[in-house]
């Protein structure tokens, strides 16, 4: 009787439902308890201030905040590669890594241990000192750029007035590091790969800066917190108000961080592995890890600049705001994985042409349009719903421009050539071979 009851499907469903309820309640109370993580650093600051001096308190609280950010980035680096491989496997109708640990969750750890065990080769003619620095130094911009990201109310590590400029400046430090990585290897492929990467990153910094400039123009500030507050005060997402800036930022940033549609830094078919061909073992792993961390950083930047940060239609009062922020970040990261699973890679000349001939002029014109709109909004502030009107106009303009761009310029539909079915029909035949060769 009891055995029969336990094997009942209704019992299993009930118990699963009950467990979910308990989990939700526990999650709710824990989230109430940990609603604002900034209390920890405040507590440590006050603790040290009462017992020791101001300087020590400042140092201790800043170290705690930095450790929080670094631990988040480290967690992302650990779990991100698993997420990426599993999701891409789903796209390609595979299973993905599922052997190490539950659901293959320990796969990144196994990978890291394997990479650490590998022998680190240093080329004989390489510049030994400069060869050792880049894999470590490339982490500095990737982690420093997390500084002004607003995780929630009261929760940004560097609440500075030049936030956007700071992120832009710090991320531009990656360029010389990548160059040194390629040059010090003393390998033609590495040097060519690093030169390509430097050329691409330098040219894609311009559209990134222009799109961020239009964000600063609309909100009237460079502070991340104030940008998020502007979006919540006007109850509009900047990604909807200036969708072209969002597109420009997203596309150009994928070129900056070497993600797939634009990852010509490591186009295996053209240059073997790009600037990190000579790096082996954990050093190559560090380059890969930075790539992944940069992708998540791009998600954080987009979600705070364009997707209203930690606000989500009033849910931020129930759930801790940083959870909402991380959810948006992970959403953008999944979008990047989707892009990687879907699109082929651009060629170098296509990318550079697109940057200099399409993206930069278009974003300059877009900047003028946004400037006109902002001046109209600030001059006629008594008219309601002006922002909504311009949002609709901007979205429809972008859709129209994308349609026209595809229609007028070189986007052609794929048409199979005429000889293909004939060749397939008579494959292996001598007659068919003669026919095919006579066509040419």
């Amino acid at each position, binding site marked *: 009787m009891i055995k029969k009851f336990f094997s009942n499907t209704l019992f299993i469903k009930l118990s699963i439902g009950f467990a979910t309820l308990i989990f939700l309640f526990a999650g709710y109370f824990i989230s109430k308890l940990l609603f604002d993580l900034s209390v920890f650093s405040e507590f440590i600051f006050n603790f040290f201030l009462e017992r020791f001096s101001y*300087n020590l308190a*400042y*140092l201790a609280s800043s170290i705690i905040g930095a450790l929080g950010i670094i631990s988040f980035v480290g967690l992302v680096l650990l779990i991100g590669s698993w997420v990426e491989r599993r999701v891409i496997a789903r796209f390609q109708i595979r299973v993905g890594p599922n052997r190490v640990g539950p659901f293959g969750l320990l796969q990144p750890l196994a990978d890291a241990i394997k990479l650490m065990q590998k022998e680190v080769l240093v080329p004989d003619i390489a*510049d030994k*000192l*400069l060869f050792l*620095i880049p894999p470590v130094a490339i982490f500095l911009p990737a982690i420093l750029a997390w500084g002004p990201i607003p995780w929630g109310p009261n929760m940004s590590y560097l609440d*500075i*007035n*030049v936030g956007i*400029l*700071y992120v*832009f*400046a*710090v991320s*531009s*430090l990656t*360029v*010389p590091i990548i*160059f*040194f990585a390629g*040059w*010090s290897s003393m390998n033609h492929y590495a040097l060519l790969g690093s030169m390509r990467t*430097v050329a691409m990153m*330098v040219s894609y910094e311009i559209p990134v800066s222009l799109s961020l400039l239009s964000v600063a123009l609309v909100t009237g500030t*460079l502070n991340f917190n104030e940008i998020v507050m502007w979006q919540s005060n006007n109850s509009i997402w900047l990604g909807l108000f200036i969708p072209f800036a969002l597109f420009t930022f997203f596309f150009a940033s994928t070129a900056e961080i070497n993600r797939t549609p634009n990852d010509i830094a490591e186009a295996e078919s053209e240059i073997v592995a790009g600037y990190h061909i000579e790096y082996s073992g954990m050093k190559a792993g560090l380059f890969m890890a930075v790539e992944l961390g940069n992708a998540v950083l791009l998600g954080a930047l987009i979600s705070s600049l364009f997707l209203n940060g930690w606000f989500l239609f009033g849910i931020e009062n129930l759930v801790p705001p940083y959870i909402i922020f991380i959810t948006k970040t992970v959403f953008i990261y999944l979008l990047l994985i989707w892009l990687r699973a879907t699109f082929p890679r651009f060629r170098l000349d296509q990318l550079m042409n697109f940057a200099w001939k399409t993206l930069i002029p278009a974003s300059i014109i877009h900047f003028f349009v946004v400037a006109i709109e902002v001046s109209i909004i600030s001059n006629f502030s008594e008219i309601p719903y002006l922002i909504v009107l311009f949002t609709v106009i901007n979205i429809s303009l972008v859709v129209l421009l994308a349609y026209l761009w595809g229609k007028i310029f070189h986007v052609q539909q794929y048409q199979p050539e005429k000889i293909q079915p004939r060749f397939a029909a008579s494959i292996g035949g001598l007659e068919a071979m003669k026919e095919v060769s006579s066509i040419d």
Partner: protein
Amino acid sequence: MIEVNIYNAAFLLFSMITLLSAIGVAVINSLMRSLFLLIISFIGVASLFVLLSADFIAIAQLLIYAGSISILLLFAVMLTPEVSINNQNSKYFLFAALTGILFTYIMFLFISIFDINQLTGLSLDKLNFSNTIDKIGTLLLGKYIIAFELASILLLFALIGAISIVRSNESDFNIVATKIKGKK
């Protein structure tokens, strides 16, 4: 005497980084290594600006010098493959040393006028001068608009000049095409 606080400790650290890497730039034979040290000293100067709570200038230093000028220098050094690894000692060593000593003496005269304790970020905090970027923006587009516009016109000329130098004519293509055909 310098006070012991976190600003002055950071100042000592950053100025040491800046000065040591700047000395390394002049001393080291390999041009690429000295360029790397030059970038580090640029970053050190940027952090010194941060200590002076000049946030915009610090970011501009990072963005323009460490991010862009360094790339320009890298490309310039790439054009000198002979000397980039093992640079020989210059025969103008004496003149360079004399100029350096003279410049250091003049700079020392300037610096010795000021009191170091008056120039830290703490003294600027007392003036309630926390936000520089608004003031710089209003000054650039208000009082100094002519200088700003002239600088932007100069940059535009430089951009157009670079494009007109690099831009390839159709005749160049034809020359290249005939050369390739001739080889075949």
